């Protein structure tokens, strides 16, 4: 029997071209036909859908209260999908009372059960859709099904499960995520896991501590960043201990978290971290000190104004400028430091915050009272640079090139 290849060969190029032309013409016609038919179909579909959505919206209260029997809509796929979509959208903007009411409705109508079933038994995109819907409901009974989704072999499904758990914002979900991370390591982007844990650990940051102590380096760093983002009043001592960790990421996270921890010992720990040999730890500490309105934070911030890293100087200047009532005295200290880069950063922050005139007024007031130093400071402010040393270049300087910051550590 003659092979297909041989037959094509013997037909010659002309016959082959004719066939390709015919195939291409048919393909063109099919594509065109498909576009037109699809447009017609979608037009009709959405018109019908809009009509039904409008009808449901008109009698939404009766629908929620059950005055309209659930079977009137839930046995029809099209209607059920519309109702579920409306409810899930309502969850996004609902207050706690309204959320509870919507959740009650979903439980009574069996929509939650249906989604839990789908999340457990379906695969691929269908499972993913079920997990997303479950997450949107924030239903506690969905947590175990979502946790099972974390172990799915498809990455997209795992991500959907993680996002769903994040949505529940419950310590129970945090427990599931931490167990999964403990078992399998980082099987999803760190940012996604961090985000989920930030949402879920707000009420119980303490549950992160055992993992922070015992997990491997990668997981510890990720968890440290989580800790840096949540209020941690109850674990201030643990954070201060973390500030002495060997890993710079951990120290940076401790610095970030300490800005939320209140004033107590935090300022002292942050002042120490502001002298850390690693630039992004210093940066985090300086940002945190800038947020703490405590007189003890001013000295380390002034010291950071002369830091070798420009981002640290910039953040220190922003933190100092933020203390509006003490602008003049802080400016005097900044000038006294005789660091032209530090002073430049201070001027930049001052101008960016639109506080130059306020500082000028404070200094003029002091000068009018006979303060000769205030007059000098006014002159420095007007000149925009220190008097004696070589002029600070406005747009250039032998800066140290920045080492790339890890994305999550980047200045905010």
């Amino acid at each position, binding site marked *: 029997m003659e092979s297909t290849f041989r037959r094509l060969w013997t037909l010659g190029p002309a016959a082959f071209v004719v066939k*390709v032309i015919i195939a*291409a013409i048919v393909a063109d016609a099919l594509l065109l036909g498909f576009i037109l038919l699809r447009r017609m179909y979608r037009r009709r579909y959405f018109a019908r859908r809009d009509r039904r959505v409008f009808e449901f919206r008109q009698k939404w209260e009766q629908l929620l209260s059950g005055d309209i029997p659930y079977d009137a809509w839930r046995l029809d796929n099209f209607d059920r999908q519309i109702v579920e979509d409306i409810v899930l959208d309502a969850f996004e903007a609902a207050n706690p009372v309204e959320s509870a009411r919507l959740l009650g409705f979903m439980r009574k109508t069996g929509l939650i059960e249906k989604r839990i079933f789908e999340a457990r038994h379906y695969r691929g995109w269908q499972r993913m859709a079920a997990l*997303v819907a479950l997450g949107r409901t924030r239903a506690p009974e969905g947590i175990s099904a979502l946790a099972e989704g974390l172990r799915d072999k498809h990455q997209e499904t795992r991500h959907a499960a993680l996002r769903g758990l*994040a949505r529940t914002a419950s310590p129970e979900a945090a427990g599931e995520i931490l167990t999964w991370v403990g078992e399998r390591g980082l099987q999803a982007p760190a940012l996604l896991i961090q985000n989920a844990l930030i949402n879920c650990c707000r009420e119980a940051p303490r549950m992160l501590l055992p993992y922070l102590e015992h997990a491997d380096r990668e997981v510890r760093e990720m968890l440290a960043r989580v800790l840096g983002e949540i209020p941690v009043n109850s674990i201030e001592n643990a954070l201060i201990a973390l500030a002495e960790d060997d890993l710079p990421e951990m120290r940076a996270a401790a610095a970030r978290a300490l800005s939320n921890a209140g004033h107590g010992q935090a300022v002292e720990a942050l002042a120490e971290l502001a002298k850390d040999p690693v630039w992004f730890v210093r940066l985090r500490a300086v940002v945190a000190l800038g947020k703490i309105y405590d007189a003890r934070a001013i000295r380390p911030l002034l010291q950071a104004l002369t830091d070798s890293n420009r981002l640290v100087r*910039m953040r220190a200047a922003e933190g100092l400028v933020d203390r509006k009532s003490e602008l003049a005295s802080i400016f005097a200290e900044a000038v006294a430091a005789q660091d032209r880069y530090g002073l430049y950063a201070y001027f930049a922050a001052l101008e960016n915050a639109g506080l130059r005139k306020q500082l000028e007024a404070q200094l003029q007031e002091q000068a009018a009272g006979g303060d000769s130093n205030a007059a000098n400071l006014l002159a420095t402010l007007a000149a925009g640079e220190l008097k004696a040393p070589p002029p600070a270049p406005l747009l250039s300087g032998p800066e140290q090139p920045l080492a*790339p910051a890890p994305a999550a550590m980047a200045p905010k």
Partner: protein
Amino acid sequence: MIHFLDVANHTLFVYYFVCNLFYLTTLLIALKTSAAHQKRLKSFRLEWFKESPLVPPITVLAPAHNEERSIRVSVRNMLALDYAELEVIVINDGSVDSTLEQMIDEFKLEAVRAVYVPQVACAPVKALYRSAADPRLLVIDKESVGSKADAVNAGLNAATSPYVCVVDADSILEPDALLRIMVPVLNDPAQVIGVGGIVRVVNGSEIANGRLSRVRLPRKGFEVIQVVEYLRAFLIGREAWAQANMLTIISGAFGLFRTDLVRAVHGFRAEAIGEDFDLVARLHRYLLDREIPYRIQFVPDPVCWTEVPSDLKSLGRQRARWQKGLIDVLLKNRDMLFRRRYGRIGWIALPYMWVFELFAPVIEIGGIFTIVLAACLGVLNEKFCIEFLIYGYVFATMISIGSVLQEEVTYKRYNEWQDVLRLVSYCFFEHFPYRQLHMIWRLQGLWQFARGDLAWKPLKRQGLESAQSG
């Protein structure tokens, strides 16, 4: 001679055939990828991601040179972008019109000293301004050296975010464009170092308050053909190449990069004609040389609307410039070809660019010439020739309609029936006579490059203000 013509005509046929096969493959990959992307987005709800405190800041860099007709609309649009940690840096690149004055007036700019470290070389900066109305806006007024790349480098020096998004100052971004372009980064921040978004044609559409209020097709036929071209290039070409991590171009009109890496490769090359292609090529080289795993992605839903030339002369100039940019970058990176270190970039992506992009005008115009010559000498196989031309035309038209289909089944921005019909109709004109004209412009580009004529020739623009309706 006859033998030569015969070989040339058959070579042209093989060339067309392989080229179209490439397009068909990319069309199929793009259709599959877009469908998966749509499903993936269902789990990636942008409002959740917006709430996250971990979303990295972005600096938008917008170089502007004589953009007085667009600047207010586009800067307003950039400041209205839906992104929590946003910084907008507009670089006034030696405009001789009222671009700077318009910004000073509209955004209450005040001269400031901001931290600016000239880490990447660029022309001298005259002044820095910050907006009193919106402190997220910083304007750099610099001297012009006639290079967009140089202007972007100035912005790069002032950027304070870990990611920079380069956009044209005559473009309009959709409100959620930055959120969407960050999706691949958030999914894999360690590896994704650059992301391209889709650029669409704004001509014909209506703009209100810095936002696109109604999407319509342009009125002129060759503007509509450019719409089809953009759809094919972005929705099919880039989507498919990115899928295989072989994306070599992120459009200069809308692209996101990791700031530290752009600085590491010394920013954009000021003398490059196609600075966007050049940067991506150098990023590939930098990372492959160091064996750093990375991905350069394309996302088809963050949309940037840009103005395309609305007269043939400007269009010809633009296409000639693109061709000059192409040859410039390909020559600069010719040592990457067929080297094991550069993997699929050196073995597939760059050879493709050489054969099917750079040589395309030479081969196609040369092919037409040999066909005509063969006909004149009476040695042309007429049947074969007619069949071949029809085949080339129909197949290429199928790819164009395929790109409209891709648009239709995924993003569907053109809602009016008339627009879709016009779009499909113009697919039939794209490959005759527009394609041949396009090839002549590209050939002119090659000729200009060979003569050393690398000067930037201005394009006539309508300006976004003219599309303002509300």
